[in-house]
């Protein structure tokens, strides 16, 4: 189920952004560092009465605090994503894609090892705070129409759905989204149409990084920990999910993520010692898809013109 959280983004990005998993890590980390401060501030401030009326904040973890932490880490990740794009990828826009790929690996390494250094986050696991009220009773099961799921999974699923609808709205129903889709077709034609391509690509990165931040916070809450290398496997799996669903297609990415997540959970659950094989299964899946249908399950086949 958590798989849905980390598959949001690649649909929009053309470049394989290895650093994406690390933005995700930064999201979880910034939430970890911010939560104390924000929650304290939130409990001291007097929120509008209607917010109080809706959320009934208990003492230490509030819905408002959760939302604020989420927003703050989205903000931070948006800035980080913008900076990554501006510093590392923008000068290489006209280079072969391999060059950008190597740079992406460099950026990813920078975050992973930089994050492990004592002057940054440090190499240890951070105990992630329960941000959502009532999360201590995470074993609580909700029963919706006979389907039983954990409360926290329901929250993650709900948040993801909200984010997805938001993303869909932005991409399909705003001028910015229109420009974004134009740019994703062809850079130069889009710029002839009067679109500022650089700005749109920056915007794409900010949007993607914000979604990564949401995923980071949710996964942090779900697994109760945050650590500098958490983005490594997640980034790769998000990529696999995106390829599975067909790169460039947002619903495809969601479906790919669900498929991958379900497969992993089943392998974990039904096979003896299955949990050791989940990573390998994910990659076998990827290679199979690439061999059989390189454009993914939902993707259009890109015709290469000479």
């Amino acid at each position, binding site marked *: 189920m958590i798989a849905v959280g980390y598959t949001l983004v690649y649909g929009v990005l053309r470049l*394989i952004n290895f650093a994406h998993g690390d933005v995700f890590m930064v999201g979880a980390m910034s939430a970890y560092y911010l939560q104390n401060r924000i929650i304290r501030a939130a409990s001291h401030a007097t929120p509008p009465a209607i917010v109080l009326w809706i959320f009934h904040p208990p003492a230490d973890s509030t819905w408002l605090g959760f939302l604020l932490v989420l927003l703050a880490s989205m903000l931070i990740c948006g800035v980080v994503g913008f900076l990554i794009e501006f*510093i*590392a990828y*923008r*000068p*290489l*826009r*006209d*280079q072969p*894609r*391999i*060059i950008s*790929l*190597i*740079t992406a*690996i*460099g*950026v990813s*390494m*920078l975050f992973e*090892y*930089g994050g492990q*250094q004592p002057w940054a986050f440090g190499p240890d696991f951070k105990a992630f705070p329960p941000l959502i009220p009532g999360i201590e009773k995470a074993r609580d099961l909700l029963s919706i129409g006979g389907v039983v799921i954990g409360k926290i999974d329901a929250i993650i699923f709900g948040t993801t759905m909200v984010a997805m609808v938001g993303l869909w709205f932005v991409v399909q129903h705003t001028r910015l989204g229109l420009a974004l889709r134009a740019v994703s077709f062809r850079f130069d034609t889009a710029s002839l149409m009067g679109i500022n391509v*650089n700005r749109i690509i920056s915007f794409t990165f900010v949007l993607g990084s914000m979604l990564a931040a949401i995923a980071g916070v949710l996964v942090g809450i779900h697994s109760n920990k945050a650590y500098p290398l958490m983005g*490594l496997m997640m980034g*790769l799996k998000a*990529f*696999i999910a995106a*390829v599975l669903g067909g790169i460039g297609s947002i619903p495809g990415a969601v479906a790919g993520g669900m498929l991958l997540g379900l*497969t992993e959970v*089943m*392998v974990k659950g*039904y*096979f*003896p*010692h*299955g949990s*050791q*094989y989940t*990573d*390998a*299964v*994910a*990659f*076998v899946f*990827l*290679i*199979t*898809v*690439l*061999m*059989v*249908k*390189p454009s993914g*399950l939902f993707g259009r086949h890109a015709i*290469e013109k*000479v």
Partner: protein
Amino acid sequence: MLLKKSDQLPSPVGRPWLHTLLQNVWVLAALAAMVFFARWLENPDHFNAYYFQIVMMVGITITLAVSLQLINGVSGQFSLGHAGFMALGAYLSAYATKTYGGQPIAQGNGDYFSDPGGVMGYFLALAIALVVAAGPMLLIFLAVRQLRRLSSALPAVGMLLLLAWIAMDVVVASKHQPVPYYCVWTHGWKGCIDLFNALLRQIPNLSTVFGHLSLSARQPLSFAIALLGGGLVAAGSGLIIGIPTLRLRGDYLAIATLGFGQIVQVLIINSEPLGGAVGLTAIATYQSIDEDNLPQRCISPWIFGTALIAFLLIWRLVHSSQGRAMKAVRQDEIAATAVGINTTASKVLAFVVGAFFAGVAGGLYAHLNGALSPDTFSFIYSVELVVIVTLGGLGNLWGALIAAVLVTLLPEVLNNADRLPHMTSQSAIRFAHGLAANRRVVYALVLIAVMIIRARWRDWVHGRWRWTG
């Protein structure tokens, strides 16, 4: 039409091998000097074990970097699975010498690696297993390729069948919790792993068939067989992996090869005969007995010899017609196809040769350290090799060599900065130590900077201070 003498192309008529040798005589001299240097290092009076280890690692890294340069730089196929090939070579050759290598010195026999027949038999059996495993895979692949021409809906049907198969597996496996029998059809992935382990356990029985081939020069021969066998298995798996994945472009290929590396790692972790997650320990390190009955470290000619062979062979390959074909593929695959180059063949060739040397380097690593852990051969190691190759300059063998030496040596030198002569400034020592501790961060920064400067320096030199392309 008359041609002047200077217009004629020099043709290597007569003795092409002499021509080649003379052209490369200085390469040979430089690398032979390295071998002698390494020989000198072996003497414990000159160098202690720690320094010895570092210098040997330099040799291994050179082999790895040069072979990766062939794949990534020369033929332009971005591979992130080099550590996987290295792991295959390391584990299989270590398993061979560990199982068939005779008694260790402590038990009085005094002859490591004393059963070449056994080692050879092991690899023959492994080769048979590889062919048996690869045959159906290639057949399926070819069938899929043929069928795709018939109908475009078939891949989707195939995916559905695959999913149905997985679902069926899940149902069957949940009924029999402890897997009773190794059956690939009913137990899917888990069955594959069990089958792999079962095969590995069967190999000793098979190899007794070949076990009575006794050969005269026992010790080095058997080590060579182990190394070559490891390399060949890595090359074979490179062939099996390469043929389907090399159709992919750029980033997809990178992820697929990365996936291959991960799969190898998971296989090793879950394989009990190969030591599992703990790793393979007590591998005989390559030593011989001198007159005083003391073990001598004499792996260095092997390591630097391999580096030399790898370098020369890849050097010759790059400058052959095949190498030019590879470079053409790197420049523009479509144009290369248009001038009649078999792009798949040249890519697969680069991949297989690179994988072979990675496997041999892995075997050397195993017999240098005496212990293997699956964590060593992770994705991160592959990335480090890619960093070396990129810093050395894509497509430049000398660059890869120099970068391999620098990247292996520099952290150790910086770590020991306080022991360097004329190093008295405390702040400089502290700076060096900090640099060594943060070395991967520094690599990453340097990598990004090199890429940006490489892309933009022409503008900057001409005074156009543009950031965007």
